[in-house]
């Protein structure tokens, strides 16, 4: 894919950032996730790390969502359907200015706003309480239909995990969205090849995910899910006029960014120790 610099324009009129700047944002977010998991003793760090670039590309280059007006009815909607990776959503929203980064310090603490998995309306920018898989796409599809009925031109982007594609509701929604020609709906699958206790390609016959989405009537793409330029380009690309919703099968690495976590499914549940946090910081080029 040819990288168009226009892809990096801030969708709500902020300063245009370079690819290098966005990559730095992603590294900072990743380090925050490691710290949050360590501080709060929360699992799913590998899952959170794998979707960081998808979220950064969406929030910094594509979604028309203004942190100053998080409830604007015309805003684009983003749903992190893989709610177990909520820390990534929170860290990205905080960095984008939806709420104070201080909130990340108390992540998952008693009485704090940010629960381990998102609760309804727990923070500005959190569009849906997720955590049970297979819910985000049907709800997002309802939002997209609702927008069309009410003459609003906003988009809906839903990020799914590959394990989540085990759920039948994903495919019910996929068929209905295609039948309704909802081209304002985009799905990004964080295809990190692991689900909680096994290889996602082995637990279920997932491959070829792109062919599946394509067969379900979607404009399906298969990309490197850590390539911000490619992700931005696709999230930016205008609909092709066929009415097909867009599916982006984003190949990712679970635990991305920290060598000893990458593609090691122990980090679905493991909590990093202090020395591991320090080492992660070194690798990510972010100082503690």
């Amino acid at each position, binding site marked *: 894919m040819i990288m168009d610099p226009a892809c990096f324009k801030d969708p709500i009129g902020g300063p245009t950032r370079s690819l290098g700047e966005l990559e730095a944002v992603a590294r900072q977010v990743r380090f925050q996730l490691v710290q949050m998991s360590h501080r709060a003793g929360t699992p799913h760090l590998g899952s959170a790390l794998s979707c960081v670039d998808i979220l950064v590309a969406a929030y910094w280059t594509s979604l028309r969502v203004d942190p100053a007006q998080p409830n604007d*009815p015309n805003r684009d*909607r983003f749903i992190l359907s893989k709610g177990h990776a909520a820390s990534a959503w929170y860290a990205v929203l905080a960095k984008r200015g939806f709420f104070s980064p201080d909130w990340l310090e108390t992540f998952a603490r008693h009485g704090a706003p940010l629960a381990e998995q998102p609760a*309804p309306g727990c923070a500005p920018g959190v569009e*849906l*309480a997720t955590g*049970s898989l*297979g*819910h985000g*796409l*049907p*709800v*997002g*599809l*309802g*939002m*997209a*239909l*609702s*927008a069309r*009925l*009410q003459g609003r031109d906003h988009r809906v982007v839903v990020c799914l995990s590959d394990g989540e594609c085990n759920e*039948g*509701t994903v495919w*019910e*929604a996929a*068929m*209905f969205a295609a*039948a309704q020609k909802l081209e304002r709906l985009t799905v990004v699958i964080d295809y990190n090849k692991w689900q909680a206790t096994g290889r996602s390609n082995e637990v279920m016959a997932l491959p070829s995910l792109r062919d599946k989405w394509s067969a379900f009537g979607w404009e399906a793409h298969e990309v490197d899910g850590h390539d911000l330029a490619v992700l931005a380009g696709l999230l930016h690309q205008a609909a092709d006029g066929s009415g097909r919703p867009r599916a982006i099968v984003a190949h990712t690495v679970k635990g991305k960014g920290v060598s000893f976590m990458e593609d090691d499914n122990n980090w679905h549940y493991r909590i990093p120790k202090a020395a591991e946090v320090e080492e992660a910081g070194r690798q990510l080029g972010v100082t503690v």
Partner: protein
Amino acid sequence: MRNAFAQQITQLAQQDPRVVVLSGDIGNRLFDDLKAKCPGRFFNCGVAEANMVGMAAGMAMTGLRPVCYTITPFLTYRCLEQIRVDVCYHHVPVVLVGTGSGLSYASLGATHHSCEEMGMLRTLPGLAVLAPADAWEVKAGLRAALAQDGPVYMRIGKKGEPAIHAAEPDLQLGRWIQLRDGADLCLFSTGTLLSVALAAADLLTAAGRTTAVYSCPSVKPLDESVLTEAASRFRVVATLEEHSLIGGFGSGVAEWWVDRPTPPAARLLRFGTRDEFLHLTCEQEEAREHFGLTASELARRLADAAG
């Protein structure tokens, strides 16, 4: 009842542009008038009920008033988590209408029966549960449901249920409708068994035991003021429903009953279906007989209890 539902939703949708109807591939021709009068606001969501309920939640979150309609077991048992998480956890105004509830589709087998769903749905925080008795209560119930800011589940029958009311009654959540007064017994009936309740009351009254009858479309919340009065005024209070004795309307009343600071002196009886799947090939009438839900059986057991 389903015709009354279709008529009423067509009328209410014309008055409120936020109303949309989602059907799980049922209602062939039933919604033709709605489709003609409110183009673009009817969705046949296919045989994919869980997606339908999730979509309804997304629509309700973004300003619409969706009404989901399909056969009760498919709307409720199958979609319990969507109802719980997408609809109730977010407390959005989705109206869920289950048709063919209870034993309406007796002849189709237990896949199509719903004698347990109120037990599941009553426990969901913030979800109101309605069970109208006749076509008029369906119309009034739908009106009341769409006026709520939170979710409502309404279980209705199929078609041809006897009309009890002569016009749309004033139906409100947490309010029951008195149809007969009496001094000895009080019968609280929810859903389409109301005609059976009235016939049982006639038998009892003719035998010298005057029997009050209430239609109780609001299963959750209960009408606590009517219950409080009945618990002190009558010797025998009974509940009646085409639903299991586990978890339904009678259970709700019994829960309220034992939670009184002072136990009521009245005796509480509950009539409903037993803890079994119906394996008998039969129509609704015989299915009710199988579970003892007939006027004569009710009258006999109530007379026994009254002593």
